């Protein structure tokens, strides 16, 4: 039993990799080959699909747009969540428990419920089709998540740290920036990772709030599938490229990943 233990994770990973392999395989084929023959690897290996994406602005701008609003959202979410999470982890104040639950309820709101009102709201304030609109809209579920994660990590830091710093004559902000933030750096990394992740994978709101100037890559893909016939090779290449930022980010946080997913609440 013990010697065959590696089999379970291995089989699971093979199962995870199969669809990804198939996508990769298709991205190196021409559309004719995809539709005409069935083969486990590209017979007529081509990089044309990727070349098209890197030279056509409607394609590569999609990636730039997505990355722009994702980064904006991550920065906004984490920076406003930091002081709030500190307050929740250290102080009792009027309505704190209710407020915490109210914040979490927004993580539970189905985006489909909000799609249309969001469109009207952001059109009304003149932010429709801008990166900041999507970044702000994604705050709806990312801020509560960031507060929740950071609160978990901060509660694990003993309060004696704060008290010692005050005794040493630190002012609150100096303590917060110089001592406290470095102490919870892992938690900040994890929170940023989650904000990045949920903002990167969400499409319904991002698509509703943009038309041309800030259109995310995922929406570009949907449009191409419907207008330019069914260019499967190109679609597969674009899909493969959307895996890259995720893989990159995971690689950076790989040492925190296990703890991070437990939101600091193990």
């Amino acid at each position: 039993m013990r010697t065959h233990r590696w089999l379970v994770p291995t089989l699971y990973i093979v199962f995870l990799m199969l669809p990804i392999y198939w996508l990769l395989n298709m991205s190196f084929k021409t559309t004719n080959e995809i539709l005409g023959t069935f083969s486990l690897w590209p017979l007529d290996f081509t990089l044309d699909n990727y070349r098209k994406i890197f030279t056509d602005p409607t394609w590569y701008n999609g990636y730039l747009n997505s990355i722009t609003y994702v980064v904006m959202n991550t920065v906004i979410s984490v920076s406003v969540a930091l002081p709030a999470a500190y307050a929740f982890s250290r102080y009792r104040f009027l309505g704190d428990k209710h407020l915490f639950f109210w914040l979490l309820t927004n993580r539970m709101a189905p985006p489909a419920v909000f799609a249309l009102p969001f469109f009207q709201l952001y059109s009304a304030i003149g932010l429709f089709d801008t990166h900041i609109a999507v970044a702000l809209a994604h705050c709806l579920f990312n801020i509560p998540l960031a507060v929740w994660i950071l609160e978990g990590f901060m509660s694990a830091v003993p309060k004696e740290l704060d008290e010692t710093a005050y005794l040493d004559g630190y002012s609150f902000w100096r303590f917060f920036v110089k001592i406290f933030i470095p102490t919870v750096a892992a938690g900040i990394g994890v929170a940023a990772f989650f904000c990045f992740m949920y903002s990167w994978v969400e499409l319904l709101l991002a698509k509703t709030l943009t038309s041309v100037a800030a259109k995310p890559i995922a929406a570009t893909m949907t449009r191409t599938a419907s207008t330019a016939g069914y260019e499967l090779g190109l679609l597969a290449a674009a899909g493969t490229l959307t895996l890259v930022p995720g893989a990159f980010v995971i690689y950076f946080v790989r040492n925190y990943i296990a703890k991070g997913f437990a939101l600091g609440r193990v």
Partner: protein
Amino acid sequence: MLKTANQKAWYFVVPVVVLVAFNALIPLMTVVNYSVQETFGDNVFFWEGVKWFEEVLNSDRFHDSFLRQLAFTGMILVIEVPLGIGVALSMPRKGPWVSVCLVLMALPLLIPWNVVGAMWNIFALPDIGLLGRSINALGIDYNFTQQPESAWMTTVLMDVWHWTSLVVLLAYAGLCSIPDAYYQAAKIDGASAWSVFWRIQLPKLKRVLTIAILLRFMDSFMIYTEPFVLTGGGPGNTTTFLSIDLVKIALGQFDLGPAAAMSLIYFLVVLLVCWVFYTLMMRHEGQ
């Protein structure tokens, strides 16, 4: 931890409240507004009271998509949670393979949802997809674009593929936090692997598993993009879950009143279940 009472802490929370309230309250009030009125365009509205709520609660269409949603969420929870625990239990605790496993397993979580749908679409198509082709080669007639059972199976399998890793990572984090002393004590007592799992590992995992089930419940209950790209809700209406149905009514037919009433009912259901979970979870944390 003992917390000090300090009303000034509100200042720290204000930015968060302002940003979230802007995004949550205004759209929510818009929805409430639509849910009690009738419009024939031109921004002219008539008061309708609870008519839309009665209509939605009595409509077969809502019942059907609600039941489908419950069945889907139930199925994926029943598969993903035990599978996730199983994989986490058999994962190595240290060594170079830990990082490799974690990175590869986390990968599906970071793929944009419509790419997940598109990827599974081309993976499962009976003529050009690896999965569809393989199943048909085994002599089973499989075509997820036409057969309801196949469409269901593919959607569930896609969700298992997409999200089991979340359970694995949470359970793994929980397992890693169990001190070695527990295992040594169990060894001295001559405990079997089964009783180690039942009496040490599972109780220690309770907290992270609550988070896992809560997150999986919320996210699967709101699922939209992946099944929409994979099956478009079809064949027929067989994979039309609540969010897909809602978007069809709101943006497809532009029936704002019923759509808004349905939104509110939908949101309240999610909220109720999450409140129960949250209360349970906070009770654990209080201990």
